[in-house]
């Protein structure tokens, strides 16, 4: 690891002479003054958008960095953008300075040398991050290597309306039984939507006796065998889905209105606090609660990365560092604001800061960190890609 960092330090100045050096933080702060950072981030959630706007107001106040939220419908659009710029030879002042990213998009950009770094572990607030307890140094099993910095933890929770479905279920097998007994009352977002694909992975992780095979990349040899139980499960489940599986919601957030409309009683979310936030915003009935499976559920970190051709790398690093500050993290965890899990180590921050976290009212539908239980690791991205493709040819063309 040290050797890698040394090698990177050797290579970096050759790659881009004018790039700021994250290790010299004072110089970064000086460079950042007056820069405008275009943060490309999914713009589908009003609460997230509001949080990003707040971040913008804070970094311009403290560091003179102007933050513009470029609202994406799909993070892959940003990947495309950087790729097009590289194709066109725009190597020094691309349109994107910061991307909310993880998983396959990160893997694609890292492999194609489209990212600036390593920088993450040189940021001052990295010292506060819970490196041991949170999956912040690997992203869907791909080593991060300092090319992206974490700012939120996400974990799968199931969202149910207790008025119609009073009891939680403890496993995917139990969920199948419940759906069969209550046809048309459950659905999941259509893969390759991020959350839809996560649902497939969650099924697989839960029904496999030993999920450790998923840590390594999927191979042509083991893929069919490993995933066979998943397809058997879905074959059994699909006829009992909402609309008999002939239509699926487009995204995870699109399922909240379906609960309110009484179209479904059970849904999933990747944000443990989202249900409480939605109740506060009139988007869900106050009878909604969340649960996790007995064996735990899949979780991962949300990161930000800086494209290699950003013209405001110093400003982007200042924003990335601010996102890991106790102030920003406590605000993100507040269910009235966002309800995202923190990436910080509670032991590393000051007692005053800790008190802020402990004082948060997590909301009626949010599980405590203890109740959230074990976090299951994300499978290697190659599984997700194959699962989504396979799902599309099996169920994406309903007859």
């Amino acid at each position: 690891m040290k050797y890698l960092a040394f090698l990177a330090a050797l290579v970096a100045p050759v790659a881009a002479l004018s790039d700021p050096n994250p290790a010299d933080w004072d110089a970064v702060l000086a460079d950042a003054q007056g820069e405008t950072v275009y943060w490309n981030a999914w713009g589908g959630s009003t609460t997230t958008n509001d949080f990003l706007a707040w971040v913008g107001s804070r970094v311009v106040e403290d560091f003179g960095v102007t933050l513009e939220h470029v609202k994406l419908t799909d993070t892959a659009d940003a990947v495309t953008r950087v790729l097009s710029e590289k194709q066109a030879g725009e190597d020094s002042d691309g349109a994107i300075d910061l991307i909310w990213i993880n998983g396959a998009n990160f893997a694609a950009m890292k492999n194609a040398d489209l990212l600036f770094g390593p920088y993450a572990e040189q940021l001052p607030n990295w010292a506060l991050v819970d490196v041991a307890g949170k999956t912040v140094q690997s992203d869907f099993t791909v080593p991060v290597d300092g090319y992206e910095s974490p700012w939120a933890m996400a974990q799968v929770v199931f969202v149910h309306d207790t008025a119609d479905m009073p009891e939680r279920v403890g496993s995917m097998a139990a969920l199948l039984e419940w759906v069969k007994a209550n046809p048309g009352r459950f659905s999941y977002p259509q893969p390759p939507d991020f959350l839809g694909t996560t649902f497939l992975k969650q099924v697989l992780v839960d029904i496999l006796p030993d999920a450790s095979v998923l840590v390594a990349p999927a191979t042509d040899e083991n893929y069919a065998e490993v995933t066979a139980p998943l397809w058997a499960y879905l074959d059994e489940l699909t006829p009992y889905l909402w609309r008999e599986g002939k239509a699926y919601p487009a995204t995870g957030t699109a399922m909240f209105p379906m609960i309110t409309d009484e179209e479904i009683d059970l849904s999933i979310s990747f944000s443990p606090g989202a249900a409480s936030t939605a109740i506060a915003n009139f988007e869900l009935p106050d009878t909604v609660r969340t649960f996790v499976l007995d064996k735990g559920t899949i979780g991962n970190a949300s990161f930000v990365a800086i494209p290699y051709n950003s013209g405001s790398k110093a400003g982007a690093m200042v924003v990335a560092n601010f996102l890991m500050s106790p102030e920003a993290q406590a605000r993100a965890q507040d269910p009235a604001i966002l309800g995202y899990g923190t990436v910080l180590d509670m032991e590393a921050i000051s007692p005053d800061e800790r008190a802020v976290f402990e004082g948060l009212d997590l909301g009626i539908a949010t599980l405590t960190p203890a109740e959230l239980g074990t976090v299951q690791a994300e499978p290697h991205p190659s599984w997700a890609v194959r699962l989504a493709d396979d799902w599309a040819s099996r169920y994406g063309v309903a007859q």
Partner: protein
Amino acid sequence: MKTRRALPFLPVLTLIVMLGPVLAGLLGTVLPAFGHLPAAGLTGPTLAPFEALFAWVGLLRAVWLSVAVGVVTTVFALALVALITAGWSGTWVYRILERALSPLLSVPHAAAAFGFAFLISPSGWVSRAVSPALTGWDRPPDLLIVQDAWGMSMMAGLIIKEVPFLMLIMMASLGQIDTKRSAAIFQALGYGRVTGWLKTIFPLVYAQIRLPVYVVLAYGMSVVDVAVILGPNTPPTLSVQIVKWMSDPDLAMRLQAAAAALLQLSLVLGVLMFWRVGERVVGQLGAMWIATGSLGKSDTIVRVSALGAGVLGALMIALGLASLAVWSVAGYWGFPDFLPDQFTMRNWDRHAVGTMSALGETAIIALTVVLVALALTVGCLEAEYRYDLRVSSRGMWLLYLPLLVPQTAFLPGLQTLMLTVGADVGRAPVMFAHLVFVFPYVFLALADPFRAWDSRIGTIAAALGARPDRILWQVRLPMLLGPILTAVAVGIAVSVGQYLPTLLIGGGRIETLTTEAVALASAGDRRAIGVYGLMQTAAALIPFALALAVPAIIWRKRRGLRHG
């Protein structure tokens, strides 16, 4: 004079400005379709992307859906507009329809589709109105109405949106035809209203509205936003699938998307050719029908049902819009409640800053683009008139290329082009990209009225000693004030509605009402959609209202310029 020397070259210049980006963008699509994408380390040529495309199990159905939606939508919308006009033009009913048109037209497609979806879905407004009192439902029935596999709700949604568009175009062209005299003649000959109109006036009108009809056809085949909201998803239409493949993290999928984009392009061209053949067949059948001398005995039933269908469609848009308005102020609103538990301005407060800055951006772009488009259009049409530079029908096809070529087929390539020539992302390039789409619409809206202007008036004016510039500014343009303002309103509505060009060419840095609304729409947040949908509608509605009101006020004492 400088302008006079430049004028003859304006049409050619305009064609280059319009076609250059499309052709360059298409090149940027053709190369990856044959496996050439150097940025991803792929070099062609290879047929592998097409092989992958044809191996996709959903292809046949996606292709069928695209074709069916385009053709069915166009046939129904055109028939409805023709029958309503045949049955009611010149009556007070038609004048009321004319007034209702602008609000209907200005509702953006995405907003209308959302409203429509909320109306017709099992848990929608119609269902709530009768539940549980009549139905006994305290939960909605599990019925696949929206996003049905046959694309019927999508067709319905498109038809109710295209009818106002074709209606507007038809009304504009009617102003150029002496319908009153023809009507007097066929009624004197004993023909029923509808039959007589279809036999004598429709052929004249269709000749004028032919290109807008093609645009409706091409649009219906390749529309993305409406298809995402109302269309099926297992599989979706071909265009939606292209967008899905384009946004796949796996860069190799872009090759398949490019191949599919070429397929989409050839589908659109193929169907347009098929439609042209169909026109001839219908024309000949029509001639035989005219020869039979049938006077039209069931005319009353036809005209009443056509009007009924049209009014129902208008009602759906209006109710959909009303539902957006209710959602924008809704607190908790569960099924089967007909109205929310409480009303709140919180949604508006939350989005106030965002909508205002987006509205400003939208207005700056739309106004600039439309003024440039209008100047180019008038310049081209006047050059054509003065120097007999009449664009051949093939030239006209080229001009409408941006409307007939699916946006997904050439916009990513266009983005690469703009970066290559060093054009920075930002507002100016976005305006340039909008111009590619806005100009044809402005031209389309203005060309027919401009050309149909009685050239004997020009002869008279010249004989009275007026030079060409004076004839243009003092006679022709004032006489065409109505059509010009309508063209401006159409152009603004088109600019306001642009999503992909704004996003791609603006590098995401340009936030208009539409880019914001579509981003929010992906999350299904109906309150935010309500706020942005209403703002979007207002941005397009006001220009249309002005296009109707301004000529009516300026020419209130000039009966000769008021049609209807």
